[in-house]
């Protein structure tokens, strides 16, 4: 019978191909949180997340908004004295929660990423207007109006695409993707 993994081990496995030190090298110095430009918007600091992972507080980590507030600026990674790739840990946690379909209700990030992935499969390129529904409905009325104003100004200046562009070899592209992840038909 397979051994049940601790949460810490699960995360180690997610990071096995990374080039930094394992997260158990963390000395809890706080440089990551001290350098983070968006830490004020996180419910746990990056250092706390590593501490929680090590202590096995899985639910608390998965329901945290910390990694979804990460801007991938890599400030933490270049300064970490223990050589841990913290920004990549944040990516790994994002992937984990999307895979497990376990994330906070009001988070925009996961839905946005899912829409993004689907959009790429559809055309091979990015097309902003398709992504709007994934976040626009979280906005209040005032924000929505401002967003619409901004969008229309951009359209007038010719900066907003009105039709999605497709790559030519889209079929090959989709085949290529399926060789990595069997998706089963167009999603």
């Amino acid at each position: 019978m397979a051994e049940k993994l601790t949460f810490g081990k699960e995360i180690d496995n997610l990071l096995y191909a990374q080039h930094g030190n394992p997260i158990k090298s963390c000395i809890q110095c706080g440089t990551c949180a001290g350098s983070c430009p968006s830490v004020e918007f996180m419910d746990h600091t990056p250092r706390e997340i590593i501490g929680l992972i090590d202590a096995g507080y899985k639910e608390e980590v998965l329901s945290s908004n910390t990694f979804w507030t990460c801007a991938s600026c890599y400030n933490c990674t270049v300064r970490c004295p223990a050589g841990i790739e913290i920004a990549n840990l944040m990516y790994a946690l994002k992937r984990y929660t999307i895979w497990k379909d376990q994330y906070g209700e009001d988070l925009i990030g996961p839905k946005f990423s899912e829409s993004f992935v689907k959009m790429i499969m559809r055309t091979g390129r990015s097309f902003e207007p398709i992504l709007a529904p994934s976040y626009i409905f979280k906005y209040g009325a005032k924000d929505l109006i401002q967003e619409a104003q901004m969008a229309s100004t951009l359209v007038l200046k010719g900066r907003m695409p009105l039709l999605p562009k497709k790559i030519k070899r889209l079929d090959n592209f989709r085949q290529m993707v399926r060789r990595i992840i069997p998706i089963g038909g167009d999603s």
Partner: protein
Amino acid sequence: MSERVGVYICHCGTNIAKTVDVEEVATWAGEQPNVVCSREYKFMCSSLGQDLIEEDIKEQGLTRVVVASCSPHMHEKTFRTACERGGLNPFLFEMANIREHDSWTTDDREAATQKAKALTNAAIERVVHHNPLEPLPVEINPNTLVVGGGIGGISAALELADAGHHVYLVEREPSIGGHMAQLDKTFPTLDCSACILTPKMVDVGQHPNITLLTWSEVEKLDGFLGNFTATIRKKARYVDEEHCTGCGICIEKCPFKVVDNVFEAGLGTRKVIYRPFPQAVPKYPVIDVENCVYFQRGKCKACQIFCPTEPNSIDFEQQDEMIQIEVGNIILATGYDLFDVSRIPQYGYGRLANVFTSIEFERMVNASGPTDGKIVMRDMESTPKNVAIVHCVGSRDENYHKYCSKVCCMYSLKFAHLIHERIPEAEVYNCYIDMRTPGKGYEEFYHRLLEEGTHFIRGKVADVSDVARTETEEGKLIVQVEDTLIGKQRRIPVDMVILSPAMEAKPDSKEVSQLFKMGCDFDGFFVERHPKLDPVATMTEGIFIAGACQGPKDVPDTVAQGAAAAARVAGLINRGTVMMEPVRASINQEACSGCRICNTMCPYNAIIFHEDRKVSEVLTALCQGCGTCVAACPSGVITGAHFTNDQVLSQIEGILWDVRVEQELVPGD
């Protein structure tokens, strides 16, 4: 005549016996040629075990002894001594390692027993070819060279000198005292550093048994334990030490000042002819040639003009002096440097005016320093209202130095205390990762600081900037750090930031270690013989190390190491003669073809070439028995004692006992 070999298989409790069938091996060994007695015993290294060997030698007339047990590193000496006590030359003994090389490497009983037989047999076949060897006596020159005149070198020198031995103390700077002379107070007692150091410096300067060579460096070292020859360059001071009274008028009258980047850490100035600090030992000043107007442009000469002695003590024609000395032992106490904090740009040193390093702050806070002990900002006037002290700068960090620098927490606490003392209303913030206060009175010192109202923020400072986001931050330095104990990123506005950089090895430590024929580690610190049991000796006989050059440490540990090194040297001097291992190479000069290949191969420069007779010779005392020349000699005329061809080849044959095929010699072969 055949030899009479005694074989002893040790159980080592269950360490060997659990995996190796020791009885079987002993019985089997007893059947081998030349073996007259074969035993197995629980603990051969015990006195009873050793007695067995002694008795057997006497009663059975053994001429060779083999013990199959642990690693020779552990007990070769024990058993060799046992042989000696039994009346047998200690080199007629061979050890087989059936523990670290056998029983500890596998759980397979059969395989382990087979290997034990092979190893024991190898020893039996080899030992038959051993020759008796006598250790070489080496005389120990009672003089000692101490390199480095900081507190470590001073301690070592005084210990030896007080014991009646002569010491040459060589120091690179114009005065002894080292970094300790720059400090204000020392933790945890808050003793004034100069007050406790200067009496020792004076002792050194006046001691009849110490020859003090300052403004000097060792350039060449030859020789070996007990017989070193050191060539020292005594740099020209341009001051005649014989006539100079140390009155200091030359310094007073010198019209030119420069920034003192060495002693005053760039915070203060000194004259071009100068003493590093008022209590300098020796008292003779030195001229800074690069900034001296006379040496650069041929003008001035104020020092010479005003010098009152007869004859004049200023000698512009003085040359460097090369001094050669003969010593028996050398103690290196060359000290440390501080990590260059500009390697961490986010801390703002150099870019932001009021970021200081620890050594700058030490000078500032020193009563005889450039600010007379007043704590002021870079404008040399304003008093800071709040100060942040940043721990772990350049240490405990994969990007710079992985090690913990040991003393920084304590000196950072000391700084906090001094700020509280001099500016009672100031707010002090110490930002640390862990508070390391392991010494005597150290944790109590930390408590004192807690009571004095220091704000301790557990978090490594992320950056220091001057970008204000609110009113309170205007005109301040902002220290951004996560207060990990409350889980919040904090921005602390302060007037002054003090960085506590790590101690690191001096930049030329690699060259110095090579000059003294020993090694340094990846961090540049000198390598001790054993990190636990022998911290002051090195792998090179006769060379010892003490103090921060071996690793970051505080004054008490440095003094202890200086004294320890001195004790080791004194012990050697006391014995007068030391016996060296006879495992050395020797060249059959009659057969030597003079090709000199061995000369260049020897890593210890132990082979000389006789130009007259065109043959090479091994200097036995320098030879470390590595065997390189033995293998390299194309004529095969170099013998490695205790590692002759017969000995090594028979060892190999012994191991292959179970695959050997007896060959019949056919006539004509």
